């Protein structure tokens, strides 16, 4: 099937064919899939031994052990279930301005992670965080065809207004349980308490992945002189988010230090909760994130 959108195309997808998302912890699920769970199932992959009890299938008795211990032990096998990958995409104005590179990067990343999921026969859903709500983009999709139909809607996605990550996620009716991975893509430059949202997801026993997408201008601003910085999410010129500054080298140095500490704080928060975190700049190739950084820590294998 030919897929040609501004977000995702065949050339890009072809590079994702060989990769898949990896679930680090044992999970639970309703349907069979490719991800091992903590319960025992009927796959061919040996998991453990258990002393025979009445009612057990005698075909699973290991006779070799019986000859050694003169006791009956049965073999237990790994159970593999289908994973539910839920992707939250921050659709605030700060993600699209001042250039579209940041938003495009975020959409491509969401699409890529979603594709990795459906390719591995997992279920995928993409939710767009707009204001205090997390809108469902295309429902829960399991096949590529359904996925491509859903992803095509990203082309017309508009990033506007501000978003409240905390309320959007906490109030989301189906954040899932211990059955998959939740990805949160945002620049995290918000007053909203997104940490509370992450804690909530962890409470729901979700594996969580945070991806911070920054623009080159966010990382290395090149302003100087007397400047009024207008926040894209500001409603009017008198919004308190707009600030006046006489930007000097000292200001720029302080900004870089603040940004470094800001990212460091997110890292520290995530490390303490075994949450994967990546901070990327939108001018970096997305492949570097997927096949290098995520591969190294095992998010993708």
């Amino acid at each position, binding site marked *: 099937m030919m897929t040609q959108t501004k977000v995702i195309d065949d050339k890009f997808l072809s590079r994702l064919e060989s990769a898949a998302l990896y679930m680090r912890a044992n999970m639970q699920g309703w349907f069979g899939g490719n991800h091992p769970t903590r319960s025992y199932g009927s796959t061919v992959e040996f998991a453990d031994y258990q002393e025979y009890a009445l009612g057990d299938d005698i075909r699973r008795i290991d006779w070799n052990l019986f000859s050694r211990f003169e006791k009956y032990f049965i073999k237990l096998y790994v159970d593999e279930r289908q994973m539910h990958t839920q992707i939250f995409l921050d659709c605030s104005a700060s993600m699209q301005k001042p250039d579209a590179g940041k938003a495009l990067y975020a959409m491509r990343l969401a699409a890529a992670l979603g594709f990795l999921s459906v390719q591995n026969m997992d279920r995928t859903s993409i939710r767009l965080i707009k204001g205090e709500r997390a809108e469902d983009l295309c429902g829960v999709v399991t096949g590529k065809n359904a996925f491509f139909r859903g992803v095509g809607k990203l082309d017309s996605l508009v990033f506007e207004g501000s978003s409240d990550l905390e309320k959007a996620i906490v109030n989301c009716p189906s954040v899932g349980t211990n059955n998959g991975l939740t990805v949160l893509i945002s620049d995290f430059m918000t007053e909203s308490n997104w940490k509370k949202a992450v804690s909530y997801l962890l409470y729901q026993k979700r594996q969580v992945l945070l991806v911070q997408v920054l*623009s080159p201008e966010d990382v290395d601003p090149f302003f100087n002189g*007397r400047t009024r910085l207008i*926040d894209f999410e500001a409603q009017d010129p008198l919004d308190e988010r707009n600030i006046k500054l006489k930007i000097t*080298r000292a200001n720029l140095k*302080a900004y870089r230090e603040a*940004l470094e500490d*800001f990212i460091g704080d997110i890292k520290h928060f995530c490390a303490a909760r075994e949450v994967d975190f990546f901070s990327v700049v939108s001018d970096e190739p997305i492949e570097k994130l997927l096949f290098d950084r995520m591969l190294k820590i095992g998010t993708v294998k």
Partner: protein
Amino acid sequence: MKLLLPLGLIGLVSVLALILIYIFKPKYQDRKVSSTYVWKLSLQYQKRKVPMQWLQNSLLLLIQILILALIAFTMAEPYIVLASKNGEKIAILDASASMMAGDGESRFERAKKQIASLADGTVDADRFSIILAADEASFLIRRSDSAAYIKQKLFEAECGYGASDLDEAMELAEGVLEENPSAEVYLFTDKEYLDSGPVKVVDLSDKEWNAAVLDFRAELVKGKYVFTAEIASYGKAAEIPVSIEIDGKERLGRLADCAKDGTCKVVWDSLDVYDYTRAEIALSAEDRFGYDNTFVLFNDQKANFRVQFVSADTGFLYWALSSVPSCNVTLVTEIDKAVGSGFDLYVYNSVLPAEMPQDGAVWFVDPPADLASVHGFRIGGEREGDYVLAGSGGTSEACRTITRGIWPSSITLSKYSYLTAYTGYESVLTCDGSPVLLAKNENGLKTLILAFNIHWSNLPVLTDFPRLIGNMCSYSLSPTVEKNAYLVGEEIGIHTKPNVRSVSVKGVFTDGGESEEIYTSFPVSFPSSRTGVYTVTQTLLSGEVVTDYFTVRSPQAESVFGVVETTLTVPIVSGSGTDASVARDTVDIYVYLAAALLVLLCIEWGLQYREQ
């Protein structure tokens, strides 16, 4: 620190302008960013890490204000009034001629040593000024703290031959006192003052004896010259031999018997001198001031202008000219025998020469119509009647000189020649509206036209006649020097003859030296700075050489020793105003101001660069 030009501080208005520029500077540039979240965090960082951020933000403005303030301050011409520690001193050194008196070492030299000694004890902790009071006062040193420099300048200082202008010296001292009112003023002089006020007078006179010729003159008595000298002896009574030499020939001397600090007259009335050019007397005295022991006198009554009077016969004019003391008139009755050079004045009465003389003044009296055009004028004819002369009303030198003391309306004419063209001539007297006495000065060659015959006027019977002739001579015959004796400091104007090639002024000084100045551009003005006998030699284009003499003497007061003055003009410290005519030693402050300005400009440049 004080300001020489406080109005320069008006420049501080520019600081206000700068602040206004900052206030009304273009608005903040709007820049849209994805989020100001991190920027707000960075503000907290800055507040925490840079406590003096406000200063850093305003540093550029502060530096620019400093620069403008510094420029305004420099425009106000600041100077530092140096505080006195041991006591700043101002030494006024009397450089009058009498300071050269002394036995071996003159008063002036002794004064220089004492000043050097005074400076040694002063400059280690304070400043020292020296004012040289010659015929004009000037700073030798102004507020210096370098003993070596002071001594070098003292060594170069020379005594004058004239009087000293102590009043001007005190005015200069006032300029220093305004900067440091506690400075002490010393006057090194040879006079004693009963009341010198705050000025400390150091009297360098040592009761020296001075025999002086105060005056020497010659009077014509019954056709013979009687010479009279006024001799003085200061410091002691003395019998002083006086020798006299007339025109190089020594005559019988006299003995001047002078009382202490008194004068006596010595008269030579039996020398049978009918004429002389130069007379000189000299004292044979071992006194301590030799500059007034001789007196040279040149005869200023001696006829020294040669006049060629060309006329068919003598008349009133000839006799009037002959009576002018300085004129030596040669009568030439035939025009063919008249010469065109070698005279100071050529008078043509009722005749005209074929060529104009080039080395003297010319009078054309009652000129005939023919040949008139050759000399630049044209005669229309003669008019008869009863006429009264009138002045032309001109204010030129010719009009002023010729008509001085003359009443033109008293002069009547019965006939005159009227001129139809007289280009370059200036009308002095007119008759019935037509000029009858005209003058022209063409590069020093002076020409007068008297367009009537003396016999046709009532001039010969008027007292104005010899006066008019005298005035015409004064205009036409300028002596080389106005007088034969000058005082030191006088500016001597040398009137050169027409067609002079060069003028040499050679001086033989009283103390034995000689000098010679050659002038080739005219007029010549000669400053009389040293006493002696001077010879002015004019070399004319024709090769003829004309020589004149004059003497330069010190003022008579310089010969008077042991004078006790009652009061001394003392410097007044007004507390306001400054003497702008002198350069201040605090000019050095500009170097530091310029350096500070340069540093501030560099800092400002650096800040601008950093901001951009």
